[in-house]
C-alpha cells in the first residue's frame, strides 16, 4: 500500500500555472464581492474591477497560446486548442456582458456588485468546463456556472417574470445536471476512470460496454439541456424571456458555448472511433447518429418556432436554439474527422462559430436591452415599429446583427456557418450530408423572422410617441466591439481560425473509415 502511494507521488504532473487565467477570474470575483460589501453604494467600480480582471486573465491566456498542448494537476486540466479558443470566447462574452448590463443596472435598483461577482464566478465555471480533462472538473465547472446563472436569472427579486424564469431554470437545470451526473457515474463504472484521456483509451475495451452506452446517452441528455437542443429545449424560451436581458445574452452565448466545450471534450476526445474495435465503433456510431438527428430537429424546430413569436426576446431564444443546431453540425464533423488535423480544425470551427455567434448575439441583446427600458417592458415586435429612421444608429446596427445571425456573406455569421458546415461535408457520409442540406434549408427559413425585424423597424408606422433613447458610453463601447467583431470576423476570419486551430490533448486516434 505504502509503495503504491509513494510511486504515485514520486513525480506528479503538477504544472500549477496552467490554471492561472481561471484563478485570476476567481480572485477578481472575490475582490469584487469584498469591495461591494465594504462600499455598498457604488454603481460602476466593481464593473471596472471586473473588466480589469478579465483583461489580465486574457493576457495570461494569450501568453500561453504558443505552448504545446499540455496537461496539469495530474491530468485533470488540459491546455490545448479547445481550451484556449473557447476560453478567449468566454472572457470576451463576460466583458461585453458587463458593458451591456451597466445600462440596465443604472435604470434599476439591482445589487450590482453581487451581479458582477456572480458573473465572474460563472465565467470561472465556464473556463473550467473548457479546460477540465476530467469528469470531476467538468461537473464542478458546470455547477459553478449553473448555480451562478440561476441567481442571475432571478436578480429582479420583485419581478414575477424574473422569479419564474429563475425557478424554471433552477428546477430544469438541476434535473439535467442529475442526468449528466448519472451518465458520469456510469462512464466511471464502465471504464474505471474519470479522466477523459484514460476513458478514450478504455473505450476499446470497456469493463461494462452496456453501461458505457447508457452513460453516454445520459450525458447527451444532460449536455443537451445545457446547450438547448431539441427535445431538451423546452425551458429555453421561458427562461430567456423572463431573465433580465443582459443575463439572457450571457446565458444564450456563454452557457451555450461552455456546454459545447465540455460536450466536445467528452464526446469527440473521450469517445473516439478506434478502427477495428467493435465496442468503440458501436459507441461512436451511436452518438454520432443520435446527435445528427438531434441537430436536424434542433435547427428545424428552433427556426419554425421562431417565426411564430411576437416577442423579440423569445424570437432570439428560439434563434439561439437553431444556432445550437448549426454548431452541432461542426461538432459532428469533428466526431467524424478522419485524422487529427481534421478533428482539430473542426473543433476550431465550432469555437470560431461560437465566437461569431457571441459577437452577433451580444450586440443584438445590447440593443434589445436599451430599447426594452425599465423591467424589459418594450420587447414586443410592435415596440420596434417605425423606429428605423428615428434612431438610425441603433436600427442599422441591429439590422447588421440580424443579417449576421441570418448568415449573409461579409458578416461573421456567414463565415461561422461556412466553417462548421465544411467538416461535416468533408466526412462524405450520407447522414452528415443530409444534415448540412437541412442546415442550408433552415438558414433560408430563418430569413423570414430576421428580416421581419428589419422590415418592422423601417417600414411600419408607429402609432404612439417614441423618443430615441440616449446611448450610454458603456453601451457604445459594447456596440463598437460587437460591430467591429461582426465585420472583422466576416472579412478577415483566416487569422483567427488559424490561431484557433491548435492540436488537442486527446491522443487516441487511429485513422480509419467506417465500413
Amino acid at each position, binding site marked *: 500500500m505504502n509503495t503504491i502511494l509513494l510511486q504515485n507521488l514520486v513525480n506528479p504532473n503538477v504544472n500549477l500555472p496552467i490554471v492561472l487565467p481561471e484563478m485570476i477570474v476567481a480572485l477578481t470575483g472575490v475582490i469584487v464581492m469584498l469591495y461591494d460589501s465594504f462600499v455598498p453604494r457604488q454603481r460602476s467600480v466593481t464593473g471596472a474591477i471586473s473588466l480589469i480582471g478579465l483583461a489580465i486573465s486574457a493576457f495570461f491566456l494569450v501568453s500561453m497560446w504558443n505552448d504545446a498542448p499540455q496537461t496539469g494537476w495530474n491530468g485533470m486540466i488540459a491546455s490545448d486548442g479547445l481550451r484556449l479558443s473557447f476560453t478567449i470566447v468566454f472572457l470576451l462574452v463576460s466583458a461585453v456582458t458587463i458593458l451591456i448590463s451597466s445600462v440596465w443596472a443604472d435604470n434599476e435598483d439591482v445589487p450590482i456588485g453581487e451581479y458582477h461577482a456572480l458573473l465572474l464566478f460563472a465565467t470561472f465555471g465556464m473556463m473550467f468546463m473548457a479546460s477540465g480533462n476530467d469528469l470531476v472538473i467538468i461537473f464542478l465547472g458546470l455547477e459553478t456556472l449553473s448555480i451562478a446563472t440561476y441567481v442571475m436569472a432571478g436578480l429582479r427579486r420583485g419581478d414575477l417574470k424574473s422569479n419564474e424564469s429563475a*425557478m424554471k431554470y433552477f428546477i430544469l437545470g438541476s434535473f439535467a445536471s442529475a442526468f449528466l451526473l448519472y451518465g458520469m457515474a456510469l462512464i466511471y463504472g464502465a471504464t474505471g476512470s474519470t479522466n477523459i484521456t484514460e476513458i478514450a483509451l478504455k473505450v476499446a475495451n470497456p469493463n461494462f460496454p452496456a453501461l458505457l452506452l447508457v452513460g453516454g446517452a445520459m450525458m447527451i441528455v444532460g449536455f443537451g439541456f445545457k446547450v438547448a437542443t431539441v427535445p431538451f429545449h423546452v425551458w429555453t424560451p421561458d427562461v430567456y424571456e423572463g431573465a433580465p436581458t443582459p443575463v439572457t445574452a450571457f446565458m444564450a452565448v456563454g452557457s451555450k458555448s461552455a456546454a459545447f466545450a465540455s460536450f466536445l471534450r467528452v464526446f469527440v476526445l473521450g469517445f473516439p472511433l478506434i478502427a477495428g474495435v467493435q465496442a468503440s465503433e458501436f459507441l461512436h456510431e451511436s452518438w454520432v447518429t443520435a446527435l445528427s438527428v438531434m441537430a436536424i430537429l434542433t435547427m428545424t424546430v428552433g427556426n419554425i418556432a421562431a417565426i411564430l413569436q411576437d416577442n423579440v426576446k423569445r424570437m432570439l431564444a428560439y434563434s439561439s436554439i437553431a444556432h445550437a443546431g448549426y454548431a452541432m453540425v461542426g461538432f459532428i464533423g469533428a466526431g467524424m474527422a478522419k485524422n487529427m488535423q481534421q478533428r482539430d480544425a473542426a473543433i476550431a470551427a465550432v469555437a470560431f462559430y461560437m465566437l461569431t455567434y457571441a459577437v452577433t448575439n451580444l450586440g443584438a441583446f445590447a440593443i434589445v436591452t436599451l430599447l426594452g427600458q425599465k423591467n424589459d417592458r418594450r420587447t414586443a415586435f410592435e415596440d420596434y415599429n417605425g423606429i428605423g429612421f428615428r434612431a438610425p444608429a441603433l436600427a442599422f446596427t441591429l439590422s447588421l446583427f440580424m443579417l449576421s445571425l441570418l448568415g449573409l456573406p461579409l458578416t461573421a455569421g456567414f463565415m461561422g456557418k461556412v466553417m462548421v458546415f465544411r467538416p461535416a461535408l468533408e466526412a462524405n457520409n450520407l447522414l452528415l450530408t443530409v444534415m448540412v442540406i437541412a442546415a442550408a434549408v433552415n438558414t433560408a427559413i430563418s430569413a423570414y423572422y430576421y428580416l421581419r425585424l428589419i422590415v418592422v423597424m423601417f417600414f411600419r408606422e408607429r402609432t404612439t410617441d417614441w423618443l430615441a433613447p440616449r446611448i450610454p458610453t458603456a453601451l457604445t463601447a459594447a456596440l463598437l466591439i460587437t460591430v467591429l467583431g461582426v465585420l472583422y470576423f466576416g472579412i478577415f476570419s483566416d487569422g483567427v481560425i488559424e490561431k484557433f486551430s491548435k492540436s488537442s490533448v486527446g491522443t487516441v486516434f487511429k485513422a480509419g473509415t467506417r465500413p
Partner: protein
Amino acid sequence: MEPSLASYLALSGILFTIGAVGVIFKRNAIGMFMCIELMLNAVNLTFVAFSRYYADVTGQLFVFMVMSVAAAEAAVGLGIIISFFRNRVSVDVDDASILKN
C-alpha cells in the same frame, strides 16, 4: 453474504427513476427539489459501489464533490423558491405561468 455490485446498481437505478418520475409529476417546487436530491443521492450510490468494486478512491472523491455541490444548489434553490413564494404566495409550479406562448 455481501450484496453484489449488480444489486447496488439496481437500487440506485430504482432510486434515480423514482426521483425522475417525481420531478415530472410533482407540482410542488419543494417536492420537485427533493426528488432532484434523491436523484443525486442515487448517483452517489452508483459512484460508491463502483469505487468499492474497483478499489479506487476516485469514485468516493466524486461523491464528496457531488455532496458539496448539492448543498450549494440547495441554498440557492431554496432562496429562489422563497423569492417566488414571496411574490405569488404559492410554491406550485402551475402558478409559474406568465411566460408562455
